[in-house]
């Protein structure tokens, strides 16, 4: 444990984690009303996906344009549990078949489908949220990476899987709630999740889990596995001929990213009170990548800020000019790729950090130079090719 702590403390990233923690645990709740805070919580549930993408894409070179798959699995698992709880025979007594979710009744389904049954159990649901996304990622990853499918082909395939998944959900309205999604979620084991107090607590649960995800990511990147991840991104062949089964290393980081996305999805459902295909389709899946790109694809912390800022901008723009958003986000993505390939974190490292360091060093005794963090972009040339 000591070892683990010193490994995290030894990195410069920890200061950044503290600042982030102060921001999302203290500053935002202090400044915002509950509605705004709930909105921020929704954005922070997207941040899980962005953090996972920094691991998989930024460090591992595994670009997935289909993280909505895993966000959706986590979100739908949570929604199914909540929906079943909201569909007790008493409150659904006006239905033809009481005791099943309302949309099933509308679609002339008279018994709960088998795959809904386990979601009566909260324990199973939580287990499913933590394992199903990773399991699904393992299947996709193994199928692709063992066949050496990678890069842009992998990205396209993940995108295709998202499309298949959303079409499946929309087409099977009676089983999934269709295009409306699973709505009207009310209580979690009798605890009303719609009250201000509940939203406040859920915001904190989300924020703490998110910081946990960032710390997990930092730990993974600090190990030999983290170095191999970078090595693999830059020179896959060399890693292979150093005796590593490259496919397994890619599958693992893809699973970690999926796990994080799944948790984010479940937290989204809890805070927003519904889950629908529009949250997990192509556009959101690409937006997740843009969060990571804007924040800086080599910065776990940057991903959180990227998710917050881009989502906030989306809300602003979409309220004023709903048609405009896709153009804005496309423009932002192009601008980031062209002018700031390392996103906000890259800009910070380049322009602000030297000043901050200079300022701080006036108060500090000279000490041994801190080892360079991996957050800092290193060789542009190897990077830009990707």
């Amino acid at each position, binding site marked *: 444990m000591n070892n683990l702590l010193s490994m995290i403390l030894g990195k410069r990233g920890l200061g950044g984690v503290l600042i982030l923690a102060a921001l999302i645990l203290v500053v935002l709740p202090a400044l915002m009303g509950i509605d705004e805070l709930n909105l921020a919580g929704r954005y922070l549930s997207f941040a899980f996906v962005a953090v996972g993408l920094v691991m998989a894409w930024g460090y591992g070179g595994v670009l997935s344009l289909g993280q909505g798959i895993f966000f959706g699995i986590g979100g739908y698992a949570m929604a199914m549990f909540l929906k079943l709880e909201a569909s007790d025979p008493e409150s659904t007594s006006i239905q033809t078949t009481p005791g099943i979710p309302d949309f099933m009744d509308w679609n002339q389904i008279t018994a709960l489908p088998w795959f809904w049954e386990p979601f009566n159990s909260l324990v199973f649901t939580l287990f499913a949220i933590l394992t199903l996304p990773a399991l699904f990622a393992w299947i996709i990853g193994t199928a692709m990476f063992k066949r050496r499918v990678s890069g842009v082909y992998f990205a396209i395939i993940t995108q295709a899987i998202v499309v298949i998944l959303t079409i499946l959900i929309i087409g099977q309205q009676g089983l999934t709630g269709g295009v409306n999604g699973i709505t009207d979620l009310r209580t979690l084991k009798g605890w009303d999740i719609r009250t201000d107090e509940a939203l406040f607590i859920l915001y904190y649960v989300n924020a703490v889990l998110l910081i946990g995800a960032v710390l997990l990511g930092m730990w993974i990147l600090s190990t030999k596995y983290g170095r191999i991840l970078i090595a693999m991104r830059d020179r896959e062949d060399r890693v292979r*001929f150093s005796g590593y089964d490259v496919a*397994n290393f890619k599958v693992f980081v893809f699973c970690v990213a999926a796990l994080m996305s799944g948790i984010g999805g479940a937290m989204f459902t809890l805070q927003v009170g519904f889950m629908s295909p529009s949250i997990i389709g192509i556009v959101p899946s690409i937006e997740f990548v843009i969060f990571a790109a804007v924040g800086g694809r080599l910065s776990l912390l940057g991903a959180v800020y990227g998710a917050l800022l881009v989502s906030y901008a989306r809300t602003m723009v979409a309220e004023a000019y709903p048609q405009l958003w896709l153009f804005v986000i496309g423009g932002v993505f192009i601008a980031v790729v062209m002018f700031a390939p390392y996103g906000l974190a890259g800009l910070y490292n380049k322009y602000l950090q030297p000043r901050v360091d200079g300022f701080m060093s006036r108060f500090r005794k000279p000490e041994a130079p801190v080892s360079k963090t991996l957050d800092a972009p290193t060789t542009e040339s190897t990077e830009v090719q990707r």
Partner: protein
Amino acid sequence: MSTNTDYLLAVEDLTVSFDGFKAIDSLNFYVDHKELRVVIGPNGAGKTTLLDLICGKTKASTGSIKFKGQELTSLPEHRIVWAGVGRKFQTPSIYEALSVRQNLEVSYPQGKTVFGALFFKRTEEVKRKIEEVAESIFLTDLLDTEAGLLSHGQKQWLEIGMLLIQDPELLMLDEPVAGMSVREREQTAELLNRIAKGRSVIVIEHDMNFVESIAHKVTVLHQGKILAEGDMKTVQADPRVIEVYLGH
């Protein structure tokens, strides 16, 4: 009939064709334990392809490659490395975003699985071994330098070091002195002679002065076949070798 298990590496009847072109054509090639073998030949003779076949980068059309009696042609690349074959590529193939130390650490032959790598501990043994290798490849002072900032020759050495730390029984080097200065070539020759003491080494090289300074036995490849094999003097005197290669 002699058994091929006497050799460390026995390549027999090996053929690989790319769209009908036979880059390697029914080749038989044997390397003994602790032998330093130099492979020379004109461009397109199949030298690099031979190394690609041995390390699993290219799959053979027919034939067998036996290493310590174990068939390599059916093994995935990382298993061939585990069996004890190390390969240096023609252009320096190192991780430019990582420091010299991290490059060596990534190549350390422990923690080769996902969870092995996650829970890999940088023990004293690991640190000692990294420093030992760094010294032998003349990079002790540059351990914490980003590998992308090294000179071309130093990158070549680093890649050799990354193989040394794996301690392979067979080391294959593809043009290790390409792009090196005269001084660096001398140091590399010295390094190779030192490395070759404990293991077998196959070197592909064009620089004849360098070949003379390290070669014990030379194999000349031409159009995917062996043209001549023997010690340096015999090979240099062979009229066919002069015709296709040395005469130029």
